[in-house]
């Protein structure tokens, strides 16, 4: 499912109707009954694949600190080769630009999948999510909106910063990664999974982003490109504490029935990130493009 081009592109477009991220999709289709029914059908298959792809071992008690500790243990950085180390030490300039293209499907709309949960949460979990999202959206400074900083990084690397400009170039897995967060965000029954997904996203960000920044500096990209990565080293060291304890941990403590889905969302995010990372790394180590088309065509603005 995650590598099925038709399924993932279809889901991505159906979610695009809700986000309004693709201006060429008619807003009048957003609640079209046939499209909603189609979305539910595709989601069922995708959700079933993700649920069968992960196994929760030694679940914690539904207590704030125990859940946070479990999430930090599940995301503990390992010593092995990974995408961030490859970008830091070995990636070519073209691979670095390809990396920016791959990430743009999420990062030009950064944080948006998680905002769907705001009106559905209450109390301390809601306060925690809004505290994180406020920082993601610049804390009142439009130049510090993370998606805006990413657009600046793309322009700095002479790439097209319009949302979806590279939609035809990225593989199904890249869309699947975004679709997973959108599915958790747009389905209220999966809000526990969304909280777990956000916690893992934040917990696996600071250290890799330092390496991405180092890689882009090594390759001679300017501050307009590296500022995005540096911002995430600092911001996500704050966000991971809030997301682990005050969002995911507190949510599981306040609503113990959601614990199982918090853990599922966390592991599903880790598994998906693993698939995406393996895809990019294996393509580049074999000297292939990670995109669907040849890079010289794909990255021409």
């Amino acid at each position, binding site marked *: 499912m995650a590598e099925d081009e038709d399924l993932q592109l279809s889901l991505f477009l159906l979610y695009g109707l809700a986000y309004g991220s693709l201006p060429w999709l008619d807003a009048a289709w957003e609640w079209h009954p046939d499209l909603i029914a189609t979305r539910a059908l595709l989601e069922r298959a995708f959700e079933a694949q993700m649920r069968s792809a992960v196994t929760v071992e030694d679940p914690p008690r539904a207590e704030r600190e125990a859940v946070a500790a479990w999430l930090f243990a599940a995301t503990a950085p390992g010593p092995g080769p990974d995408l961030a180390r490859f970008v830091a030490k070995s990636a070519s300039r073209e691979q670095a630009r390809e990396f920016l293209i791959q990430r743009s499907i999420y990062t030009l709309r950064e944080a948006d999948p998680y905002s769907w949960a705001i009106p559905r949460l209450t109390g301390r979990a809601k306060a925690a999510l809004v505290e994180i999202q406020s920082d993601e959206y610049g*804390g009142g400074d439009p130049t510090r909106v993370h998606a805006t900083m990413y657009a600046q990084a793309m322009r700095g690397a002479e790439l097209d910063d319009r949302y979806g400009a590279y939609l035809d170039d990225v593989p199904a897995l890249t869309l699947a990664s975004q679709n997973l967060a959108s599915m958790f965000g747009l389905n209220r029954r999966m809000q526990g999974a969304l909280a777990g997904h956000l916690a893992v996203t934040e917990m696996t960000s600071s250290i890799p982003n330092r390496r991405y920044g180092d890689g882009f500096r090594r390759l001679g990209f300017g501050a307009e490109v590296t500022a995005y990565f540096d911002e995430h*080293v*600092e911001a996500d060291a*704050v966000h991971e504490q809030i997301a682990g304890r005050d969002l995911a941990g507190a949510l599981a403590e306040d609503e113990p029935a959601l614990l199982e889905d918090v853990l599922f969302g966390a592991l599903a995010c880790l598994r998906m990130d693993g698939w995406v990372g393996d895809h990019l790394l294996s393509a580049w180590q074999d000297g292939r493009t990670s995109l669907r088309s040849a890079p010289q065509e794909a990255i021409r603005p």
Partner: protein
Amino acid sequence: MRGDDPVTLTACPDGPLIVRGPATFQGEDGEPVDQPRRTVALCRCGASAIKPWCDGTHKLTGFTTGHDDPR
């Protein structure tokens, strides 16, 4: 955020100190430290490359705060 709101420090087990509220950060020389966000994490393990802020390095060094943290 109002000036008379309290400043709170939260000690995260095995992690940084989270600071909320109208705190001002300054270096030894009295010069203000640029604080780009409302809620910040102060390094507690000593290994951060962006001190005074946390950069997550405590997760690589095995830093622990023991069991006496205020919870």
